């Protein structure tokens, strides 16, 4: 027998607990869809993760990070930093700092300290037209490190704002800059320049594709002199962008979308002027920003870890796209005194080596529109 008073009190407590409990329990059953990605320095790669050689530079939420020996280091505050690029001698970084209305190229030490501002794209203090500001994106240096290449939004005419490839002396100003490419109107223009050692420039050009759809597509182009009309290296239907030159300069990695909401990792031989057949390496992920390891051991790239999630860092070993040539089994050497019976020639079977990409990070959210940089 239980006292009614005690029972009522107990039930009241029980009801409060179970009512709030079920409410709180349902709250815990929410998916993690809207959970913001962790900061890289809060979540280094898993202990068992693949440790990449050298130092990789990436951008997330407006900050630059380096990944070295399995640990992330934050190089800059979250203040619009993106698109890191390593000087050819590996001594410093170039990066873009973006604000609401303009972006500028900066030279940084490898630890993120600002060394110099290389462009000045903010409109003057007495300007009332937002179009007086400018964008600089995708900075690159020539091998001699004396010339800066970038995508810059000039010339522009009213609503027609496109980026073109420009070069300017490092330490100079935009008045000394040279226009290298003529972008197509109302396309977004020419981006991602890569100055080559032979003086040519490889870049991504946007254009309207074939009728009847006339979809906007991307193509890799090459031009050998400033102000000349270059030529396409990839077809319209391949819709390829984000080129990356291998350390030996003889291969290109890129992504191709085939005019769809997909992106395949593609590599192709390259001789400095022409491109060979495209080889699709990864076709089941939304690949972005392929970047060659400086030691040639593979390709790093960004892709979601699960469908429609933030972009993580992945690594694909070289074996995946250049499988080692199988060494033939040694043929038996007849020894004196032995008699070799004639038998059917054995058929050698080499099972195909499936090399899967390695997921290096989880729960982060790298800026997939920002190229990576990788040093020894």
């Amino acid at each position, binding site marked *: 027998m239980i006292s009614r008073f005690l029972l009522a009190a107990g039930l009241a407590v029980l009801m409060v607990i179970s009512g709030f409990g079920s409410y709180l329990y349902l709250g815990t059953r929410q998916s993690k869809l809207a959970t913001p990605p962790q900061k890289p320095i809060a979540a280094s790669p898993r202990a068992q993760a693949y440790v990449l050689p050298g130092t990789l530079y990436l951008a997330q939420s407006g900050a630059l990070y380096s990944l070295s020996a399995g640990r992330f280091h934050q190089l800059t505050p979250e203040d619009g930093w993106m698109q890191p690029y390593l000087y050819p001698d590996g001594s410093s970084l170039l990066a873009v700092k973006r604000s609401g209305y303009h972006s500028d190229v900066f030279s940084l030490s490898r630890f993120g300290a600002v060394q110099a501002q290389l462009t000045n794209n903010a409109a003057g203090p007495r300007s009332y037209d937002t179009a007086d500001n400018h964008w600089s994106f995708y900075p690159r240096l020539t091998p001699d490190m004396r010339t800066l290449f970038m995508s810059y939004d000039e010339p522009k005419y009213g609503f027609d704002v496109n980026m073109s490839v420009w070069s300017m002396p490092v330490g100079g100003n935009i008045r000394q800059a040279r226009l290298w490419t003529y972008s197509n109107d109302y396309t977004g223009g020419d981006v991602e320049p890569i100055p080559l050692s032979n003086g040519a420039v490889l870049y991504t050009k946007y254009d309207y594709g074939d009728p009847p759809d006339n979809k906007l*597509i991307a193509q890799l182009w090459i031009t050998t002199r400033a102000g000349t009309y270059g030529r396409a290296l990839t077809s319209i239907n391949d819709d390829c*962008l984000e080129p990356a030159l291998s350390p030996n300069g003889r291969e290109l990695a890129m992504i191709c979308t085939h005019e769809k909401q997909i992106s395949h990792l593609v590599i192709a031989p390259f001789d400095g002027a022409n491109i060979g057949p495209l080889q699709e390496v990864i076709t089941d992920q939304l690949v972005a920003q392929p970047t060659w390891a400086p030691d040639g051991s593979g390709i790093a790239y960004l892709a979601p870890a699960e469908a*429609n999630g933030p972009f993580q860092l992945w690594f694909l070993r070289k074996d995946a796209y250049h499988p080692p040539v199988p060494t033939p089994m040694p043929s038996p050497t007849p020894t004196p005194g032995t008699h070799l019976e004639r038998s059917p020639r054995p058929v050698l079977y080499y099972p195909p080596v499936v090399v899967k990409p390695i997921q290096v990070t989880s729960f982060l959210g790298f800026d997939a529109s920002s190229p990576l940089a990788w040093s020894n």
Partner: protein
Amino acid sequence: MPLGGQPGRRARASRRRLKLSRSLVLAVLAVALSSAAGGLAYFIPAAATAIQATGQIVSVASPTPTILFTPSPSPSPVTQGGPFTVLLLGSDDDSKFSSDHVLTQSMILVRVVPATKQVTMLSIPRDLWVPLSVGGTGKIDGAYSYGGAGAAIATVARNFGVHVDDYVWVGLLGLIKVIDAIGGIDMVTTNPVMDDYYPQDINSGDPYGYQRIAVMAGPQHLDGTHALQYVRSRHNDLQSDFGRSRRQQQVLIAIRQKAKRVAPADLPNLAAAIAGELKTSIGLDRVAELLPLAASFDNPDAIQQIVLLPPYTHGGGPGGSVTANWSLILPLVHQYFP
């Protein structure tokens, strides 16, 4: 205590006590009821928003108002499991216009054939010059402004010769909130979208202000603000509204893909995001029917996307409008929206 007399103190105390078995039954009932109440409290905001947003009654603002159709309980024209057509409307519900008198910057006819899992999306140019159902002639994006969803539906139905079963209206702020509530979307942005005069009318206090935007090209994860920039900008697109329509279709498909991962417990947050920013004539019961159907469509490339580029339309109409070539449009529409 004598029989029939006043109960003693012990007896009164005994009556105030309950047997253990009864107490246990009461406890179980209490736990069940309070748990249900807790669950109800969790889902009440979502339910309230759903009830408020769905089942909108649609009428045409004309000299003789006509009820086009009403949501359940009246019989729906959509047969169970049969094909149906929905008109998607998107508006910049900013302070330039009074509430519910906004232009529809985006008008997309969607036909779904559940049996074959076929989806067709036809983007209607917002500047299309047509006879409006409310009288007169004007750009088709004004129909909603003059007469609400009913006028927009009637205008589309009469000009394109299609039967529209339902409509869904989304405000642009709602689009941002929905995309943020589902944690952003993955997309391949087809080109750098640059605009020096992009409207700065959302949460800025200045409905006529503008800003610069630059959405980079390629595969990326977009939050609501950047996804809206990608779909809304039309200044730097040779195809103007047509290019924008194509981008809108891409984002809709990406949202649908991401929405497949939404758990029931996410509904209150989603409801809070879309509160006041989404209206539909689809009844709540029908929404419940359609959710599993939407989840079963797993191939976004199978979705037929149609944009009425020239020669289906051409510019040079009155007030910067687009003129329709109905002799080409109507056979196309009847092919995909029979």
